[in-house]
Every structure is written in C-alpha cells, then in structure tokens.
C-alpha cells in the first residue's frame, strides 16, 4: 500500500521536476515558446493542456488496453491515439470558443495546435512504453501537464521581465528566450536523481 503511494508520488515528482516534460524530455516546446509572452495566455494554455493531457492519457490507455492490444493492432497505436486526441481537442476548441471567447482569442492558433503538442501524444506513447496502469496513466498525464504548466508560467513571467532589458540586437526575441529556457534547464538539472528509487 505504502509502496503504491510512493510509486504514485514518484511519478509526479519525476514528471514535474526530475524529468520535466519540457525542459528535460523536450516535449511540448512549441507552445512553451509560443504562448509565453503574456501571463494570462500562459495560464489559460496551462489549464487547457492539463485538461487535454489528462483526458488523452486516460482515453488512449483505454483504447490501447481494450481495443488495440486484444486485437493485436499495436502498430496502429500512434494513429488511434492521435485520432482520439485530435477529436478531444477539436471538441474542446469548439466548446471554448463559445463559452469563453476571450480565452479562445488569447490562446490563438495554439488551441488547435494542442493536437500537435508533442507532450500529448508523448504521454500516450510513454504510458504504453512504461506499461502504466489506468491510475498511473492518469497521474502521468496530470504530472506531465503540471510540469508543463509550472515551467510555462515561470518562463512567461521571466519573458515579461525580459521585455525591458537591453538584449543585444541579434539575440532579441527568440534567441534570448531559448537561452533563458536553456538556463532553466540547467537549473532543473539540480533535480536529477530525485526520482530514482
């Protein structure tokens, strides 16, 4: 019992800190770079991603466990996962557009692009690779999203401050943001070893 709980905790610590999806595993970088200019947008994106990620983690588990594996169709897992994800996102998008137009505007082109957020498919594939059960899959998705949200929000606040610094011209914009992300990754290396048994 205690062991199971520490296993779950480990999944969270690992996905959020030690193997942070964005900074260590390199997943979900496009929205990380693209939606990190305004804090409001970053927070909205985090929420949307957390929702989609957890949902897709679970639903792809179900698809894999109850359809693909019994039928021996594992080679179609990428295809079916992404289909499930795309449909989830598309529906979310249409609903959000109606329910919260401002959030929709802030997320801009990135909401449909959650579909093409590697983290989402990455979670589904890694769940299969690491043979997670249902609860673990959900936690894994949630942890990944939390890790994504954490660094996205911190990064956005940093970029807002960068807006009024005297960065050398060739480095303005994306390069300095990337260097900042690099230094964040450097700092996150401090967490290596945290999630080892």
């Amino acid at each position, binding site marked *: 019992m205690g062991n199971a709980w520490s296993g779950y905790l480990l999944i969270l610590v690992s996905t959020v800190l030690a193997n942070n999806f964005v900074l260590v595993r390199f997943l979900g970088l496009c929205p990380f770079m693209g*939606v990190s*200019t*305004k804090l*409001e*947008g970053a927070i909205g994106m985090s929420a949307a991603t957390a929702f989609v990620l957890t949902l897709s983690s679970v639903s792809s588990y179900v698809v894999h466990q109850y*359809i693909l594996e019994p*039928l021996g*169709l594992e080679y*179609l897992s990428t*295809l*079916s996962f992404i*289909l499930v994800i795309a*449909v989830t996102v*598309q*529906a979310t998008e*249409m*609903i959000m*557009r*109606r*329910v919260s*137009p*401002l959030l929709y*505007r*802030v997320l*801009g082109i990135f909401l449909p692009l959650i579909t093409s957020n590697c983290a989402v498919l990455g979670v589904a594939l890694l769940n299969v690779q690491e043979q997670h059960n249902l609860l673990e899959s959900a936690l894994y998705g949630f942890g990944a999203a939390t890790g994504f949200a954490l660094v996205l929000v911190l990064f956005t606040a940093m970029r807002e401050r960068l807006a009024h610094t005297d960065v050398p011209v060739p480095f303005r*914009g994306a390069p300095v943001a990337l260097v900042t992300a690099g230094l964040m990754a450097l700092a996150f290396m401090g967490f290596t070893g945290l999630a080892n048994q």
Partner: protein
Amino acid sequence: MLIPLIVFLVFGLVFGLVLGWTARRFRVESDPVVDQIDALLPQTQCAQCGFPGCRPYAEAIARGEADINQCPPGGEAGIRALADLLGRDPKPLNPENGEEQPRRVAVIDEAACIGCTLCIQACPVDAIVGAAKLMHTVIEDECTGCDLCLPPCPVDCIDMVEPEPAFSDWRRPAPGEATS
C-alpha cells in the same frame, strides 16, 4: 485483415458524428473580440489601414486577415496595446500604411470657402458645421485629423495644422530628452 478496417471505420464514424454535432451545438455567431480591438483603435476613421474605418479594420484583425501594425494614427502605442490584447509580439508600424504623426486638426480658410458642403459629407465624425453656400468651420475639439475632407474640397481651402497645446496638455519630456 478486415478487423483493423472495421475498427477504424467505426472510430471515424463515431468521432465524425461527435464533431459534427458539437459544431452545430456550439456554433458562434459574433466575435466580442472585435469590440475590444475597436476600443484600442484611435477612431480617426482615416482609412490609412486599408479598411474603410476603424471598425472594419478591427473586424479584419479579429478574422486574422489584417496585421496589427497598419494603423498610423495609433502608432507604436496602439500596436503595443493590440499586441498585448492578442498575445502577439509588437512589431514596427508598416511603412506602407503611413507614418505616425502628432494629432492635427483641419482648419478651413474661411475666406476661400465656397460653401459646397462636400467636406461635410466626407467628415466621418461630423466635425464640420455650415450649410450650403455658407462658410464652413471645423470644430477643433471634434476633428480627428483624418484628412478625409481634403480631397473633396474643390478650392483646396482646408489646411491641417497642429493645435496649440494647453498647459494642462503639456507632455513632460522624458529625462535625458531635450526640453523644448
């Protein structure tokens, strides 16, 4: 061999149905973002952005058909406000649309004015008063400086001038900038 085909046939059908239904159920008619964009535009109505007035431009931005850097009267500050609202990076004003200028107002040379009313019809904010055949005047406090009354005037009697600033309008220069 057939199993995968059937499975995915079902997948496709179900998902397509779900999406089609959602699309109908949650259809959106109007975009309130237009109002927010419009609120940031200077309302000069000068059409330099390439649209017949500020609101059409706002609509075009909301549709994603126009960039945020096409309004010269709004200038840098306006672009920055739009970028803020829309979560994009600010960019310099597109020189094809014109340059940022201080606000100016139209002044009608009352001696030359023939009272043709053409300028009145052109003015988007009803800043010109006068009746047919009578001399016309621009109400300085209403004029947006859009230049639209210039082309129609048959006798070229309208000039654009910078209004004299009141003491209360004085803009203190930033430190380090030359004091005038």
